[in-house]
C-alpha cells in the first residue's frame, strides 16, 4: 500500500566516497564525475522547521526537514506532522510524484499534503489526480 521510497537515487564521488542525493554530475568537493548509486529511503532527522511565512508558490505552514539517510547522504524533504518529532527520530521517506515526504502517510493525508504544498490550482488538481491514479493502479494488480 505504501509508496515508501525504498531506494532514493543518489551519486557517489569515486575520489572521496561522498554520497549526495538527489544525484549530481560532479562531486561538490572534487571536479570529478560522480557514479550513480541509491540510498535507503529511511533515515534520522538532522533538523526540522515549520515555516510560517512560506515563499511564493507554497502554503504556510510548511514542514521542512533535513534527514540523514542510511547510506550517508543528507536529504531535504517535507513532512506531514512534526508533533512529537525530535532530532534523531527515525523516519521513512515516501516519494509522491517526485516530491519526498518523511513518515508513512495514508491516501487522505497525501491528498491533503498536495493541497497544502502546491501554490497553483492547476498543479494541485493535477497532483491529486496523478496520486489517486497511482493508488488505484497499485491497488489493482495486488488485489487488495
Amino acid at each position, binding site marked *: 500500500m505504501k509508496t515508501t521510497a525504498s531506494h532514493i537515487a543518489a551519486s557517489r564521488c569515486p575520489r*572521496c566516497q561522498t554520497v*549526495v542525493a*538527489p544525484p549530481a554530475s560532479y562531486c561538490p568537493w572534487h571536479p570529478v564525475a560522480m557514479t550513480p548509486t541509491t540510498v535507503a529511503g529511511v533515515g534520522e532527522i538532522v*533538523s*526540522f*522547521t515549520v515555516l*510560517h511565512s512560506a515563499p511564493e508558490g507554497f502554503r504556510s505552514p510548511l514542514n*521542512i526537514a533535513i534527514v540523514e539517510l542510511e547510506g550517508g547522504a543528507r536529504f*531535504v524533504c*517535507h513532512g506531514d506532522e512534526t508533533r512529537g518529532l525530535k532530532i534523531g527520530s527515525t523516519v521513512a521517506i515516501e516519494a509522491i510524484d517526485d516530491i519526498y515526504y518523511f513518515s508513512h502517510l495514508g491516501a487522505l493525508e497525501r491528498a491533503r499534503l498536495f493541497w497544502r504544498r502546491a501554490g497553483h490550482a492547476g498543479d494541485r488538481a493535477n497532483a491529486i489526480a496523478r496520486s489517486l491514479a497511482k493508488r488505484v493502479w497499485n491497488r489493482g494488480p495486488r488485489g487488495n
Partner: protein
Amino acid sequence: MGAISGPPCKLTFSARPGKLGEGMPSVYVAGAGMTRVGRRSEPLQELMADAAHGALAEAGIERPGMLVVAAMNPEEFLGDGNFASNVATYLGLADTPTVRVETATSSGAAAFYAAFAQVAAGLYDSVLVVGGEKMTHLATPRVSEIIGRSIDPYERSYGATMPALAGLITRALLARKLVTPREIAQVAVKNHANAALNPYAHFQQAVTAEEVMESRMVAEPLRLLHCCPISDGAAALVVTSERTPVRVAGIGQGTDTLAVRHRDSLTSFKANRVAARAAFQMAGFGPERVDFAEIHDAFAPFELISLEDLGLVPPGKAGRVTLDGETARDGRLPINPSGGLKARGHPLAATGIAQIVECVWQLTRRVGARQVPGRVALSHSIGGLATNNWVIILEAV
C-alpha cells in the same frame, strides 16, 4: 561551533600557511560614507551616489582610478541590468574603469576584496567601492523569494528560504544545548540597544528579551525579532595605497557547498573558519588582538555561531558571554556597535561595506555616543547560507 570536523578532503586549502599576502604593499581606507538604512523612496542609484560622494569627499579624491560596484540582484529587485556601467554613469564616473562583484549577501565584502586586490597588486592607487540594494518597494514574500534564489535549487524546490534554513540551524543549536533561547534573544536586545544610538540604523528603538521571545514565529524555533529587516541603503569606501589612519591588516574568504544538506555540521560554518584563518594569517596576529567586531547577524543565532567560528570566543561560550554583557558596547569585546544587520538593517550588497564603514568610523573616533575603544576591528560577512564568507581585519595606524 566547536572543532573543525569532517573528512580531510573537505579541509584542504590552496593558501600556504604564513605566505598569504607576504611582501604585499599595505592598503589603506581613505574615506567612508553611507546612507541612512531603512525604507527609502530614492532610486538605488541616488542612494549609491550619496554614499559614494561622501566617501570620495572624506578621502579628498574627485576621481578614483577604478570603481567596484556591489549589488546582489538589481535585475530582479529593480529590473536594471549592466549595473556597473549604470552606476558609474549615474555617479559621473562614466570614464572610470568599472566592474560589478557579486557573492550574494556578502557582495559588499567581496567588492571590498576586489578593490583591495587592485591596490595591493599596484594596478590602481585608489579604488572606490560602492554597494547598495533597494527592496522595500516589493512585497515581503516576493523579496523573500528573490533572496532565496541564492539557495540550492533542490532545497528551494521544497520551499526552503533563508529563514527556513536558519530555523533548521537554530533548532540544531538548541537541541545540542550549545545556546539557550534567552542567549539568542540577548543578541537582538543588545544590537537594538546599539542601533538606538546610530542615526544611520533602520531601527532606533530598544527591544526586551520578552518581546523577542514572544514575537511572531517565522521558521520554528526562529521568531520575527530574531531576523534582520528588509532594508534599503548604500555604503561606500575609498581604498588607497597612500597611507591613512586605517590600514587593511588582513582579508580572507571562506567557501562551502551551496547545498546546506551536503555539510556535516549545521551548528558551525566552515566558510567562517576558513575566512578567519586566512584573514588572521595575512594580519600576522590572532583573534586575541581584536578589540571590537561587526558580525553578520542576519539571524540572531548566527552572531553566536560566528563568534566561536572566528575564534573571538572559546567554543561553547558565545551564549554565556553575550548574556554576561561581554559583547555589549561597554563590554570586553563589543560586537555590532552599529546595531548589526539585526537593527542597523541589511540592505544586502551594502551590508559588507557598511560594516567596514562602521569599523573605520569607530577606529577614527567619529561615532559619538556609540563609540567603543580599540585599535583593531574585525568585519565579518556571510554570503548566501554561509557559502561565501569574508573576514576583514582593520587596524588603526
